[in-house]
């Protein structure tokens, strides 16, 4: 291993532009594992918290609740209409300038880049998931509602037992897309010092003065995770959307 790495380093120093030194990647293995964990952790938490925020907002929009509907529409419009990076910068660089933020109890949270990422990603994902869930709720078959009414279900019971489970099934493919979108979007966390997959890639590049090793490894890891998500969603679809299978 050592000898191989020395040979690789020599070839690399000779300046072959095509050369990819796997030793640089392998020698940082623990960092890569850590990076994958940070990416997955951030993405998963943002999706889950986003979902928790999105579900009531989607119900309010689907039910056309007065005032709330308008507010939620505004929220969704702002967060879907602007880049995630700008939202992150607004929270990470922007909030810190206000004295009342620095004096507040939340400052230990807002000072931390990781939390800023989680907040930005959650708010962003909540907006996208609201739209997805709203569409799925609105698409509920008329017969479903009528059956609920005929059985004397209260609106809350109908929502819990029939309307929301049905909507979640219909939303499954788009929620899968949102998962991939968030996984990819989370790469910008590396721009605010987080050592996620891309962060480690850039660190490796910087430390060894190389170009390909860090970035291509990061790309390969993201691709593998994307395939994992796509495969997982396909499995879920096979299970929960069996009635639509061709």
């Amino acid at each position, binding site marked *: 291993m050592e000898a191989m790495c020395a040979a690789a380093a020599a070839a690399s120093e000779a300046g072959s*532009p095509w050369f990819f030194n796997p030793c640089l990647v392998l020698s940082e293995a623990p960092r890569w594992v850590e990076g994958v964990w940070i990416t997955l952790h951030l993405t998963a938490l943002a999706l889950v918290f986003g979902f928790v925020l999105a579900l009531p907002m989607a119900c309010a929009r689907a039910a056309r609740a007065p005032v709330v509907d308008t507010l939620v529409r505004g929220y969704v419009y702002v967060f879907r209409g602007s880049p995630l*990076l700008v939202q992150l910068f607004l929270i990470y660089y922007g909030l810190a300038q206000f004295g009342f933020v620095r004096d507040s109890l939340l400052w230990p949270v807002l000072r931390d880049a990781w939390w800023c990422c989680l907040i930005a990603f959650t708010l962003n994902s909540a907006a996208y998931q609201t739209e997805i869930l709203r569409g799925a709720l609105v698409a509920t078959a008329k017969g479903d509602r009528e059956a609920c009414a005929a059985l004397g279900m209260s609106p809350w019971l109908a929502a819990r037992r029939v309307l929301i489970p049905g909507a979640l099934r219909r939303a499954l493919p788009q929620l899968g897309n949102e998962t991939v979108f968030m996984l990819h979007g989370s*790469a910008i966390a590396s721009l605010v010092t987080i050592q996620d997959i891309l962060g480690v890639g850039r660190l490796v590049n910087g430390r060894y003065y190389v170009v390909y090793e860090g970035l291509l490894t990061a790309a390969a890891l993201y691709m593998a995770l994307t395939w994992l998500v796509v495969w997982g969603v396909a499995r879920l679809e096979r299970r929960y959307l069996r009635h639509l299978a061709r």
Partner: protein
Amino acid sequence: MEALIGAGPLLLQGFWVTVSVAVLALALASVLGALAAAARLGGGPVGRGAAAAYSTVVRGIPDLVTILIIYFAGQRLVNALAGAVGLEGVDVSAYAAGVLAIGFIYGAYLAETFRGAWLAVPRGQIEAGVALGLSRSRLLWRIAAPQLMRHALPGYANVWQVLVKSTAVVSVIGLSDLVGLALKVGRRERDPFTFMLAVLVAYLLITAVSGWALARAEKRLARGT
């Protein structure tokens, strides 16, 4: 606030950089998308394989990573090639790399849009054109293209909206776009919040205006249906 107004002309420059990167990238993406769709539909096994690989790779990697790879690895390759033929190293411009990368990424998405639109044109119409003895190019322009545009526009509009937002990351490779300039000046003026908020509003403006224009175009192309 005064700092923001004072920086107005500079930010306007950044705004134009952002918009021009987006528009040029869309043009490149359209060309690449059309090529990939054509390869996918009738390119033989090699063409189909290449188009499928293009789409899989691009969709699997975050935009930011693709942009960094194209910029840094592209620089390295260009230098190596220049060195091989005995020239001095050339600087790859961040602007060109940004346009290239974003066009490359969204070409893969447009390929799907174009392919779907082509498949949505009823076969009978193409056959009718052939039966009338139209040449290939006339068939394409007079029969297929108007319907292609109609079917492709909703997807095209979608891709444009996503593409515009993805231009925010080009500041990472040192381009003085709206985000990069606003962050730099905002931090210097100790007021990044106001500057970033202005950027957010600018992006909302772009998406709103282009959304409105595209909805109109959609209506126009769909007239008579």
